[in-house]
Each structure stands twice: as C-alpha cells, then as structure tokens.
C-alpha cells in the first residue's frame, strides 16, 4: 500500500459526506446506497465513521462532473479516467469526483459505482495507489462481482497505518494476493491450458507460459467473469479444447475465454458420482488414453471421455495406484508423460508407467523463483 506523500490525514474520526449532485444513470437511492456501502468498507476496518449530511459543508463532497470541472484535473470522456479524489484537507480536500461521461451501474456492467467509489474514498482518507493487484487501491479498474467488493489485507494495512486499528474486538482481515515465489504458496487447483500451466488460488490465477520466465498473477474474473472464486479442481481435455472447473457439486466448461452456455451443471448427473461426493479435490485428463482422473478425499475415479461414463471398479484408493504422493491431493495436472501432484507446499512428480515418485519439488517450482 502507499500513503499519500506528506501523510495527509483527517484529525477526527467522525467524518461527514454530502452528495452534491446525482448521475442520471442510477436512481437516487441506488447512488445513496452505493456511496454508503463504499464508505462502509473503510469504516468496517478502521475507527472512522461516515455520516451523510445535507446542510453545511461536509468533509467529503461527492459530485458527478463532465470534462473540465475547474479543479485542474479535467475528465477525458467515456472510459480512460473514471474518477478522482483529493487527499484529506479543508474545502476540496477529501472530495471525490466521478466522470459523468461514464455509465454508472449497480451491477457487473461497467462501471460499478460502488466499486469505483470505494477506491476513491481510499484517496479521500489519505491512501495512494497500491501496486498490489489484489488491492482495492490498485489504480486500474478490474471487473469484479459487485457482491464481492472487499478490501484486501494490503488495503486494511494501509488505512490502519494512518488511523490505527478498528474498534472491533476482533480485528478484520482481508484476502492476500498470492506471490509466486512465496515458499508457503499452496494451490486450490491446477491445469494445463493450451500449452500453458494455470494455477488457482482464492480469487486469483497464476499463469505460466513456456515463453515467459515469470508467472502472471491476476483475477480469475479477468478471463472468466462468471466463474466463482475458490475453484477446487480444474482439468483440460485437450482433444476437445476445453477446461472443466469444479467447485462444490457444480462444474463449468470453458473454451478459451468463453464459459460454454448451460453451465454450471451438476457433477452427479454428468459424471455419475454418488451423492456422497460433494466436491472434487483435483482432476486431470490423460489425452493419450482419453481417461479423466478425479481425486476425492483418499479415493479416485476414472471417467472415459469417449464413452462418457465412469469406468467400472472405481473408486479406488489413491495410495494403491499412486504410491508416494500421500492419501489426498490439492491439485494435479499431467505433462509430458509425468503427473504432477500438489499437496500443501509439496509437488510430487509421478511416473505413471513405473508407478513411482521420481522427484519431490516445491509447489512453486514452475515459477523460476
């Protein structure tokens, strides 16, 4: 996180705000609601309170403006700059301006007012831009599920560095952005994907192309906005150029950037899992045999992609057929005749023909740390 140079801050905790004018894009109460929620993300994690006033000069004045609006920072028409806000201080200090040339929404369409306002109010309180891509104070607008707008730990650390901890008995925490070279990095899921490797953690993917030495970290929603975060398993069926994503007893199918229509579907109907199976831990598909392996708790199933049904005599115990990798799997993919199993911070390189682990690696060995 970054604090605005000179550490400008409000000397009081109980701040006021006013809404000077309203965008015609939304109903008045939708604007009121979005602004109230946007302040609440900050009051939930700090000792600050925000009260809307309609008489007198508020600390933070909110307005919607076109182009040049006499503050030396003209807006630039649709897209580009969406809004800006001023650091704490009298008069224009703390004020937040929104570009009326944008289309302001209250749902997933561009641009969600709640999402942009929550960011701008960070500036109103003295925060600068953070280089943490998972932080609300990251400068670029990233699509996000409007029901999922939350401060990251980086944002919480920033605001508490200025105003101290929250008055809540239990200190609030936020999600952190996975760091590719973090030795404690673990994965929710992993898959190959058109020649690349993709690893999934909370809201994020870590993407490793053979042509890049470093991993790219970004939001899953950047590629697949309708996918949930917290993906639990993923596997590619290269022959069909699809990837299946699993969470709970549901799964989605994507091809490139498209989530195929009709999904999510239920794993029991399509794959024939018994009702006792309510989540998939990991999965991979063997493109040579056309078999897909699903790992659930200490057992695994084998599904025939051609016949579209589970093979007989399954499930079987993981330890029987994949000795050395432990009894449970977090994530798995197959690559060049080896299977890579991930469990916690460990990765097991498994040779299926000889049924043996040939190497135990760190979970982030693919990222050239």
């Amino acid at each position: 996180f970054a604090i605005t140079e000179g550490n400008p801050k409000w000397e009081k905790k109980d701040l006021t705000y006013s809404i000077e004018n309203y965008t015609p894009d939304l109903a008045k109460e939708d604007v009121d609601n979005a602004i109230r929620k946007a302040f609440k993300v900050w009051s939930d994690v700090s000792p600050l309170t925000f009260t809307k006033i309609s008489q007198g000069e508020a600390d933070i004045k909110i307005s919607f403006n076109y182009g040049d609006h006499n503050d030396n920072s003209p807006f630039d028409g649709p897209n580009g700059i969406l809004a800006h806000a001023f650091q704490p201080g009298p008069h224009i200090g703390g004020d937040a301006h929104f570009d009326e040339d944008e289309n302001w929404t209250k749902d997933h369409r561009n641009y969600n007012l709640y999402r942009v306002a929550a960011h701008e109010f960070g500036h109103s309180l003295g925060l600068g831009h953070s280089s943490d891509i998972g932080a609300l104070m990251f400068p670029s607008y990233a699509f996000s599920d409007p029901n999922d707008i939350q401060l990251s730990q980086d944002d919480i650390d920033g605001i508490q560095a200025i105003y101290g901890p929250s008055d809540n008995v239990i200190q609030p925490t936020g999600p952190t952005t996975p760091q590719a070279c973090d030795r404690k990095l673990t994965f929710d899921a992993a898959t190959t994907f058109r020649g690349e490797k993709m690893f999934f953690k909370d809201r994020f993917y870590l993407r490793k192309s053979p042509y890049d030495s470093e991993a790219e970290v970004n939001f899953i929603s950047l590629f697949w906005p309708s996918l949930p975060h917290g993906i639990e398993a993923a596997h590619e069926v290269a022959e069909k150029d699809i990837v299946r994503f699993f969470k709970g007893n549901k799964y989605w199918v994507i091809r490139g950037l498209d989530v195929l229509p009709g999904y999510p579907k239920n794993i029991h109907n399509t794959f024939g899992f018994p009702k006792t199976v309510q989540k998939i831990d990991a999965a991979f598909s063997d493109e040579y045999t056309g078999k897909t392996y699903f790992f659930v708790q200490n057992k695994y199933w084998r599904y025939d992609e051609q016949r579209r049904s589970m093979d007989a005599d399954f499930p079987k115990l993981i330890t029987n057929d994949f000795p050395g990798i432990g009894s449970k799997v977090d994530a798995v993919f197959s690559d060049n005749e080896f299977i890579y199993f991930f469990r916690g911070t460990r990765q097991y390189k498994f040779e299926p023909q000889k049924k043996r682990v040939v190497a135990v690696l760190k979970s982030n060995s693919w990222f050239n740390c």
Partner: protein
Amino acid sequence: FPAHLETKQQDLEIVQNYLEKFYDLKTEGVRIAKKKGSSPVVEKLKKMQKFFGLKVTGKPDDETLKVMKQPRCGVPDVSQ
C-alpha cells in the same frame, strides 16, 4: 501510409499522455517520437512497468499498452 505507422504514433501519444498524467513526466513540449529512447521517458516507463508488475523493458510493448488503455482512477500513481 501503412496503418501500423499511424497506430505506432497513436501508441506513442498514449504512452506520453499516460506518463505525464500518472508518472509526473515533464516533457516541456518534447515529443516522444523525436526523442526516441530519451531517458526521462524510458525511466518513467520503467517505473510504470514496475508498478504494474509488468516486464520492465522501458519500451511501450503490447502488455504495457494494454494496461495503459485500461479504465482507471485519475489520481497519479506517483506523487507530483
């Protein structure tokens, strides 16, 4: 002219405008194209690429331009 020459010039304009607005690039009227690789621009571009976790090349590559074209907040990334 081949279209990509125009696009090239547009991209350079985007880079200059972005660095002036968000990375305190002072160009005093000097245009990027004339001073290809001029140090202030390259340094500011590297700072922007580092901030966004991009490959620090000092060149307006595709990934950098993609980020510069994303909608964003009008507050500068570095203090002015």
